[in-house]
């Protein structure tokens, strides 16, 4: 059985009928298949840096207003309106302003910014120039996680090309704008994706979150007004400037307009990047992409990385936009659709995620540092058959003491898989208790399992 077999459902948008793939709207990914897609030459052949020309012809405040009107919302997880973030930067304050691009993509399941930067780094650089014009900044940083050297290479090269062509440096395109862009490689710490931890890290410190207020827009990098934006948010700006806010708003919904990258992974027939209007459903994406792997059915999935509460096959028709996913009890997050089939033990999955949060907890606040540690101990026992009935209430209670009581959102993220898995799969946890242990065979979940077993798998 595949989920595709249960066709129909109540999507509020057209389903695409017989051609669900027609719903796709490649913009950021539109020419990733072209030869040398990462070069300036290829980018310019596809209207690259045209949006910048239009933006530089407008006063900075008009650019901010334009992006605000477009309705673009942050693609890093929280969905905060990008234009509004820019607008918060005080003007005429005499201080330097900074743009920091968050390219520390590390949320488990999330894999959109890295392929974007590998295939088309210039869309980010063009977006950076436009944003810096708008917020009146002469200094931008790209904080790239260190563990992706192929992307670092292409960013170094793209920045070099952009300087050589006059898109960076002094008096860009004769506009009077001076801008330097620094590519900064991180050193392995998930917490640095949190914007204030990222700023501390960029200042050469341990990456620990800061108390807010003051917000980065007032006192960010070097205590100066700073905008921190996700890669995909900034990379979406050139197309909006070039093709217009109305075009952008023609996609998606009123409150969540535009296109975005959905990253399908796990036990699906065809994992990968699918660029579509906000509000598409997982059912539509699976229908067009071939569904779950043959002979299996969807068990649970995350809408936006491991920090967003998991969904089950009940949620196939939830519109994947900020409001739709929120109303269904989760968060759109990074649109990292990790799909697991019935061979996967939910306790194993949650245990591993929790180990991740324990490892990545920065240690600054007690609920997260201690809570994630104890969750790991309890979950490992449960998975190994050493759990006791009271343990389920205990992990629920510990998660409750982390959620909303931690210094930053990492703690909330750690609680999400616990709460949501207990909500939908408590029975499966109970099957692990009292010495019984994990009833699943991990060998059946692997990429190659069905190549060995062929048809010996029951659906």
């Amino acid at each position, binding site marked *: 059985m595949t989920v595709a077999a249960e066709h129909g459902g109540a999507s509020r948008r057209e389903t695409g009928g*017989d051609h669900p793939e027609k719903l796709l709207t490649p913009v950021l990914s539109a020419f990733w298949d072209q030869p040398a897609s990462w070069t300036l030459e290829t980018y310019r052949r596809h209207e690259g840096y045209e949006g910048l020309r239009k933006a530089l012809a407008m006063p900075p405040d008009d650019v901010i207003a334009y992006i605000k009107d477009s309705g673009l919302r942050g693609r890093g997880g929280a969905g905060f309106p990008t234009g509004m973030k820019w607008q918060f930067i005080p003007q005429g304050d005499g201080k330097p302003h900074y743009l920091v691009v968050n390219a520390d993509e590390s949320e488990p399941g999330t894999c959109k910014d890295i392929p974007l930067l590998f295939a088309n780094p210039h869309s980010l650089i063009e977006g950076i120039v436009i944003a810096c014009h708008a917020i009146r900044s002469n200094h931008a940083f790209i904080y790239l996680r260190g563990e992706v050297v192929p992307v670092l290479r292409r960013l170094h090269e793209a920045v070099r090309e952009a300087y050589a062509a006059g898109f960076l440096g002094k008096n860009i395109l004769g506009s009077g704008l001076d801008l330097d862009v620094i590519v900064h490689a991180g050193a392995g710490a998930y917490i640095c994706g949190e914007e204030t931890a990222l700023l501390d890290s960029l200042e050469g410190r341990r990456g620990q979150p800061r108390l807010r207020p003051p917000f980065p827009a007032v006192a960010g990098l070097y205590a100066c007004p700073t905008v921190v934006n996700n890669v995909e948010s900034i990379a979406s700006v050139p197309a909006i400037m070039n093709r217009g806010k109305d075009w952008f708003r023609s996609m998606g919904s009123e409150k969540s307009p535009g296109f975005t990258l959905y990253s399908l992974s796990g036990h699906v027939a065809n994992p990968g990047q699918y660029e579509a209007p906000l509000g598409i459903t997982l059912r539509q994406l699976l229908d067009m992409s071939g569904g779950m792997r043959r002979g299996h059915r969807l068990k649970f999935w995350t809408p936006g990385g491991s920090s967003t509460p998991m969904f089950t096959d009940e949620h196939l028709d939830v519109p994947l936009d900020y409001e739709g996913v929120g109303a269904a009890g989760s968060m759109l997050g990074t649109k990292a659709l990790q799909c697991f089939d019935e061979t996967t033990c939910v306790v194993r999955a949650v245990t591993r995620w929790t180990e991740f949060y324990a490892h990545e907890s920065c240690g600054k606040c007690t609920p997260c540092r201690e809570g994630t540690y104890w969750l790991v101990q309890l979950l490992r026992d449960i998975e190994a058959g050493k759990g006791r009935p009271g343990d389920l209430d205990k992990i629920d209670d510990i998660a409750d003491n982390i959620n909303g009581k931690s210094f930053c959102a990492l703690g909330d993220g750690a609680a999400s898989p616990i709460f949501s898995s207990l909500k939908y799969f408590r029975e499966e946890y109970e099957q692990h208790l009292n010495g019984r242990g994990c009833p699943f065979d991990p060998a059946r979940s692997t990429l190659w399992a069905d190549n060995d077993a062929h048809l010996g798998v029951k659906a």
Partner: protein
Amino acid sequence: MNATPANQDVQLGMPALPAPDYPADVRARLETDAKEVIARYPGSRSALLPLLHLVQAEEGHVTRTGIRFCAEMLDLTTAEVTAVSTFYSMYRRKHSGDYQVGVCTNTLCAVMGGDAIFEELKDHLGVDNGETTGDGAVTLEHIECNAACDFAPVVMVNWEFFDNQTPETARQLVDDLRAGRTVEPTRGAPLCTFKETARMLAGFPDERPGAVEATGGAGPASLIGLRLAKGEAAPGRGADHVVSPRTTADSTPSDEPPSGHPADEAPAGHPSSHDAPQETSASDEQHPSGPTAEEGE
């Protein structure tokens, strides 16, 4: 050169002596690089992460000498630099291999086979997490999500992507690395050593001809939606259409069952991400006290 073996069996709780400096020629060369890095930033301390990558490019890990160098270049204390260097997982604290092989064992990759791959490599290489093979070629570790979930299971070597791995392909990969055979990633440039990689991370672009364009554009999974939208790939067709399971990277499905991770394994044995305290280079009394000793190896 300045190591004092006589002190090694005496534990009087005395404060450590200052780390030895680099030899003058090394110091001069690193200072030139460091000043170039520092000049990029409005605030000098921002150069600390790149400088830690830089000293790692010199010695393969962050030594006390490297920490002293960073502190002197940025007018910080060695305690301040140590605090930062021990926070980030990419800074190694002990002598390690030329090739860092990282197997993703975060949930999605683990479930898709990362656990089996990691077990296979531990078995095959005879090393545990964080350990290096006797020939000094390979350091094995399990890593967290590396933003390539649509290519799961993923193995990274010196932070280049090896996509859609199996226990067999991963075993071949480490055998090739140890035999000195040319190894090319699925996405990324032909492998260089860990030290050379660290230099790029410090902010010095890869100067090798062809490195930037190596392995071409986006990987197949990155293009799948685009191809579908352009009508170049067969789309799903609702109820009656499911495509066959993907084949593995080299289309050589395994004949053997994947090894490792039996259900009855003790929880302590599985590749957890739990953050056990690690030795710092400063607290490791076995550690050679200066770069000279290591370079002499």
